């Protein structure tokens, strides 16, 4: 495996942990829900003065959209995460 790529649907936590530990990075293929992705692209397409406007505006629309943490943090996945860390990484990240 040339790159530490984790295919969509892979739940081999040992492999994920090993790849992250060895390389320091991982690519999760197709990790974003397509509906979320379209919404996120909507934010950027409607905001043209980016460098200043987004710095102030990004946090609020992310949180208001409802996609924020429920999809991205390891401990909160009420509807089934589209992207999740392994349990070991969740336990030790920023531990």
């Amino acid at each position, binding site marked *: 495996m040339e790159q530490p790529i984790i295919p969509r649907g892979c739940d081999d936590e040992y492999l994920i942990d090993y790849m992250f530990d060895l390389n320091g990075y991982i690519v999760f293929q197709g990790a974003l829900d397509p509906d979320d992705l379209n919404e996120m692209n909507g934010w950027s397409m409607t905001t043209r003065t980016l460098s200043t406007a987004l710095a102030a505006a990004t946090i609020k629309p992310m949180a208001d959209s409802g996609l924020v943490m429920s999809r991205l943090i390891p401990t909160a996945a009420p509807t089934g995460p589209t992207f999740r860390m392994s349990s070991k990484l969740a336990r030790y990240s920023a*531990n």
Partner: protein
Amino acid sequence: MNRVSIHENLVSIRGKGGYIGIHCGGHLPISYMTFRQNNTGEWMVGQINCIMAMTDIGPGDGPTTLIPGSHKARIPHPKLSGGTKVYRSDEAAGKQIGMREIYAERGDVLMFTDTITHGSAERTNEGYRRMCLYRYSPRWIRSRFHYVPSPELLAALTDEQRDIIQPIPPRYSPSALEEHALNG
């Protein structure tokens, strides 16, 4: 133990000529530039970046670049061997020794420890690369630009979301509280 908080969220839209210089690495004696706890050997990943590709990112698109394994480096990258040893903005990271461009299709997520030596290549294509970055930190690190979430934002969050957006509420001086009261 130290729990998780949001250090920074951003959307980056990179046009032609845009890039980020080389920065970070396992050599840095910075408290959150950690990967393992030295005494126990357990993971203690100080910061984690999740870059979400909103467009396909390939050669010439200004992709993120990194040096695999450099989160364990004990000596600085040659480009970082002088000065602050933290960041060099004079040219794109993609030009530096050992760098690998990370390509992605829209919807892919690149997750990496902020300790890894990284940056980006210069975008040479027309058009724009769009990505969204979430960076997670230990809860005791303030958010990067020290924004204070609005009451409206906090009210819209679940307890779990609020706990990582504002894990430690700000404590204002009496004069600042008075000013807030006067300004409504």
